[in-house]
């Protein structure tokens, strides 16, 4: 019994190690000294960051560099990202593309990069300190403002809505909810019945929606601060045989499919694929002394039943667009 137990354990560890080894072992050529880019994403669970990692590899192919991933095992862990920054610095990458798990808390980590003279591109969420080659991202406030406007127009500017917020205290949530609120101000005949937190989680959003459906007879629209929560809300509506127009943020493939199936109204997005591409390209261009603007703000798309085409192509088979097409000087 003891033997079988430890055997399975060892097997498990082998699988685990093999899995961790995979992404970094690709693209190593012995002859040329390739530039290496350390890419920091927030977690392994959100498909959005997976898209960014896939795009970064596409950019690595296009520019002939190596991209090494640093992902906290515990989602969005501040201490883990801090220690991964230290690990990365000891390996001396040519540059880093950095998505902070928290806009304030990891600033000392950025300063370590600066002290080690490793150039850093700040991607997706703006860090509130440290020196960066460039900030590239999209503005959460504008994405949610545009997406909410789209819903409220579809509702002909009247009816009842609920807001499902993300994690309290997180900066993207604050910006997204502010965007929703701003759009709602523009449509005074739409009434907000409740604004409750779903903590960015599908199951919590499902339960919150179920509870709110109990309290309110007529709900015409649901504004969710991310796609996972929007999809949780849709499950609750389905189970209760109720109808409402639902919007989310992120443009994940699952949400786009729900839009296609007519279950979800729209999802607002700053293309993660584009961000992964341009982030890595920007870092490499800086290393090769090519111009990189101090700030790149990506265009916003609201995917609805008319324009989802393109968003449903699997990311693995996409190539990065040329830099000049996206970044206008």
């Amino acid at each position, binding site marked *: *019994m003891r033997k079988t137990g430890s055997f399975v354990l060892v097997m498990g560890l082998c699988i685990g190690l093999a899995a961790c080894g995979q992404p970094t072992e690709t693209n190593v050529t012995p002859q040329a000294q390739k530039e290496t880019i350390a890419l920091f994403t927030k977690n392994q669970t959100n498909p959005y960051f997976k898209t960014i*990692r896939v795009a970064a590899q596409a950019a690595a192919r296009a520019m002939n560099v190596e991209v090494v991933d640093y992902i906290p095992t515990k989602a969005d862990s501040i201490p883990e990202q801090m220690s991964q920054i230290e690990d990365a610095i000891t390996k001396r990458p040519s540059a880093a593309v950095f998505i902070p798990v928290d806009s304030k808390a990891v600033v000392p980590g950025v300063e370590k990069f600066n002290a080690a003279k490793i150039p850093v591109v700040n991607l997706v969420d703006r860090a509130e300190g440290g020196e960066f080659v460039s900030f590239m991202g999209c503005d959460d406030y504008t994405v949610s403002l545009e997406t909410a406007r789209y819903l409220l127009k579809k509702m002909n500017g009247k009816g009842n809505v609920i807001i499902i917020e993300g994690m309290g205290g997180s900066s993207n949530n604050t910006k997204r909810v502010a965007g929703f609120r701003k759009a709602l101000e523009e449509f005074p005949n739409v009434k907000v019945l409740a604004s409750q937190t779903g903590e960015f*989680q599908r199951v919590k959003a499902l339960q919150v929606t179920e509870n709110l459906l109990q309290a309110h007879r007529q709900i015409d629209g649901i504004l969710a601060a991310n796609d996972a929560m929007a999809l949780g809300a849709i*499950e609750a509506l389905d189970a209760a045989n109720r109808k409402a127009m639902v919007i989310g943020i992120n443009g994940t493939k699952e949400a786009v499919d729900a839009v296609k199936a007519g279950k979800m109204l729209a999802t607002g997005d700053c293309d993660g694929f584009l961000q992964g591409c341009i982030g890595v390209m920007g870092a490499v261009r800086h290393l090769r002394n090519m111009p990189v603007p101090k700030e790149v703000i990506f265009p916003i798309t609201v995917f609805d039943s008319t324009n989802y085409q393109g968003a449903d192509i699997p990311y693995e088979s996409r190539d990065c667009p040329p830099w000049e097409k996206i970044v206008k000087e």
Partner: protein
Amino acid sequence: MKYRLIGVALLGIALTLSSDAFLTASNLLNVLRQASLIFLSASGLTLVIVGAGLDLSVGANVGLSACFAAAAIKSTGMLSLGFGAGVACGMAIGILNGVMVTQLRLPPFIATYGMLWMLYGLNYWYMAGDTIYGFPPEFRALGSGNWLGIPIPVYLMLAALLAGGIFTRYTIFGHEVYAIGANAEAARLSGIPVGSRLILSYTVSGAMAGLAGVVYLARLNSAEAGIGDALLLPAIAAVLIGGTSLFGGSGGLLGTLIGAIILTLVLNGMNLLTINTNWQPLVTGVIVLLAATVDSFTRRRSESRA
């Protein structure tokens, strides 16, 4: 036992007085359906804790089992296979936990804490940031369907409660687990096969987590690696709020049911009353402590009277 219901009753009365929507058949069924998910994952855990053990891998187990079941259904189209794969995955994890605790003699906290991280790792690797979604309606009925007007997960919860109740009260095995929890050495000396009983209790915990994973999947119509992350602490909290002692030897499933209902009522009440999001964690903490205080107070009085 009846004293333990006082916390729930007070909470129920307060909500009835403050919201019209609370005391309706549809909302009460809604609460039971939400509680059933916590209960299913906490039911096997109750048995482990009664035996003076601990299973921290419950949430991660729910996540991996759900993803495993999702992959089985997607690749074969067979619903029963997916169901079986989810429960078997959970069960296998439970057996490993039991073996680590009894054969390798690891403290339950360490063994299942290590397991938790291994399961996260396996699941992240396996799912690689993807989501598996879109299941047939017959499968989704398991999580969101009704039979005779009552949600199907509620039947599963009642079945688990009944089976567990019979098991702990009327079988020798059940009594042995309580005896082991109260004093493992005394149990060993009186001839109880402690090791195999503990392995079985971890196996039940794993299998129930696997079942909860399948029901979760059916409910959400979607599986992602982080699906069970938020479940660990509520599951342990439901067991402990329900009066099962972390030191083992006392408590039971009916208490866990009450614990699960209290935790569910808190969220339900906050949503019905639209309490400001920023205050919700604080309110949750206060209500949980109040419920536990009422419970411990009434229990002490009933014990001293008896």
